């Protein structure tokens, strides 16, 4: 049985991980279906009488201070969180893996150069940087948010990939491939990439939770993706003023945020344990 099938089997046996993955899937379905099944998140049908209404049949999660449907906004907010979370994570690991591969395969000088660069980049304060950029860049599209978060978060992956490549270079089976006469590109493709894939996948999935929180933090401060586009962050911002009188306004996105991040983390842990059972707690 191939190592991938074995990992899949191990993952399936890990109940919390499976539940996390199920929640993620549910969320994704909800996010995709949002425009089809819910009301327009931007509509403000009756700013006076529908303001801050508690949950009812018409509005299952109530309405917010602008009489907008909270359920709809929460689901639309999920779209932002998922796009930014998954998108930035994927972009980040691609960048990181690329640099890591280059550093691991190259000679010592290039490797040192790249890694010192990474060391400097890690030292930069990510959150402050993002805050500064988005404070100035007022109309940043979601793509910019994705791009910048990715650009400030690929460093760990590059180290992981570089370490994996360096240790694999000396592995007997790689030496055997060289002895067979396989060309370098072939060895990378056939032997290195499959081995690097697992830690990269794990790294990416662990990142998603963090990125979602990061984006929520930014939009809570009014940066990045701005209102009226609903994001969980700015919904919480809307709801903080009416926390006591209309708690559902902040609770819905807040709970959604918590559930999503926990689900992603559980699934990511499960992936990590599935690929490398030795690290299982």
């Amino acid at each position, binding site marked *: 049985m191939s190592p991938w099938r074995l990992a899949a089997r191990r993952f399936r046996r890990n109940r919390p991980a499976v539940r996390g993955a199920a929640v993620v899937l549910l969320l994704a379905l909800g996010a995709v279906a949002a425009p089809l099944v819910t009301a327009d998140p931007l509509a403000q049908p009756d700013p006076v009488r529908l303001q801050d209404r508690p949950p009812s049949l018409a509005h299952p999660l109530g309405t917010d201070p602008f009489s907008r449907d909270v359920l709809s906004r929460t689901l639309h907010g999920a779209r932002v969180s998922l796009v930014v979370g998954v998108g930035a994570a994927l972009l980040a690991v691609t960048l990181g893996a690329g640099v890591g591969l280059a550093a691991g395969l190259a000679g010592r000088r290039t490797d040192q150069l790249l890694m010192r660069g990474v060391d400097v980049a890690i030292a930069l304060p990510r959150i402050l940087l993002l805050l500064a950029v988005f404070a100035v860049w007022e109309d940043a599209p979601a793509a910019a948010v994705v791009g910048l978060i990715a650009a400030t978060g690929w460093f760990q992956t590059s180290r992981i990939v570089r370490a994996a490549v360096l240790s694999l270079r000396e592995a007997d089976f790689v*030496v055997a491939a060289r002895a067979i006469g396989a060309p370098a590109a072939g060895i990378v493709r056939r032997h290195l990439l499959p081995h690097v894939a697992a830690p990269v996948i794990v790294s990416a999935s662990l990142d998603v939770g963090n990125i979602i929180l990061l984006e929520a933090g930014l939009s809570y401060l009014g940066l990045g993706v701005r209102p009226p586009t609903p994001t969980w962050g700015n919904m919480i911002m809307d709801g903080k003023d009416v926390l006591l009188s209309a708690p559902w306004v902040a609770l819905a996105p807040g709970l959604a945020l918590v559930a999503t991040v926990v689900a992603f983390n559980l699934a990511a842990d499960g992936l990590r344990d599935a690929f490398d059972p030795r690290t299982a707690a």
Partner: protein
Amino acid sequence: MNGGGRPLVKVTDLVTHFTRRTGFLGARRETVQAVNGVSFDIAARETLGLVGESGCGKTTLGRTILRLVDRTSGAVRFDGEDVFALDAAALRRMRRRMQIVFQDPDGSLDPRQSIGRAVREGIEVHRLARGAEADRRVEALLAEVGLPAGSAARYPHEFSGGQRQRAAIARALAVEPEFLVCDEPVSALDVSVQAQVLNLFADLQARRGLSYLFISHDLAVIRHIAPRVAVMYLGRIVEHGPSDRIYARPLHPYTQALLTAVPVPDPGKGRRRIVLAGDPPSPVNPPPGCPFHPRCQHPAKDDRCRTARPELRELGAGHFAACHLAGR
């Protein structure tokens, strides 16, 4: 050293040194003198045994011969051609003719590849066959090394150590080599499995006309499989010749100590054991003079041993030893 006719493999004064960083924060550099001037020949269809303990350089020697590691000086000629002078294309062609089998069956097969794919790699790289024909060759190779039908689709972790080693041998054979460097191929295997794999090596040699450089620290294994043997210590060959002669009457004090140290499955056979003084040496700082002199227990050890490095001298028919005091 000569097996008659032009040798298939001719190693002349091969030296391989590495530099390594050590010390606090890697500030210092040291040179590991792994292989320090080794010469020998191997003829076609012949097995040369190479015996030595850890740190003697035997693994580095095997890999240098195959140009998997860079040499520092000296020459390796395969079928007359200088292995280190070949360009990329010629080197790739040469790789078909000489292969390697490693010690650790766990590490030598890519765990993410099925056995069939691993064996196929050589066939694909050298374009020896494609598609169904390649599959057929893989099946034939796996059968030849004694693996059961259907092994090609399975993964290394599904096999035992002995079976993995067989798969590694099949992979080496896929490119139809003439010469195999066998680097401790049975050391990690149990007794009963070791016997099976040793028999396999013998059968393959008879059937395919292979030459072997058979490296091992196990003297009994070398005795069994190699009619000629070279003893390595600290990057140099200290004794070589026909196994029968060397095992019956070792001339170099190291070989003597080595032979008496091996536990023999024969209770009641009292033997005088030569116990060596001190630790095994480090190839970073080989002592001056004879490399073995600090641990040598020879009663007539003298100043010459400490200052002058002994050369290999022929002290019997085809039997060479590098010792000032041997043969006296």
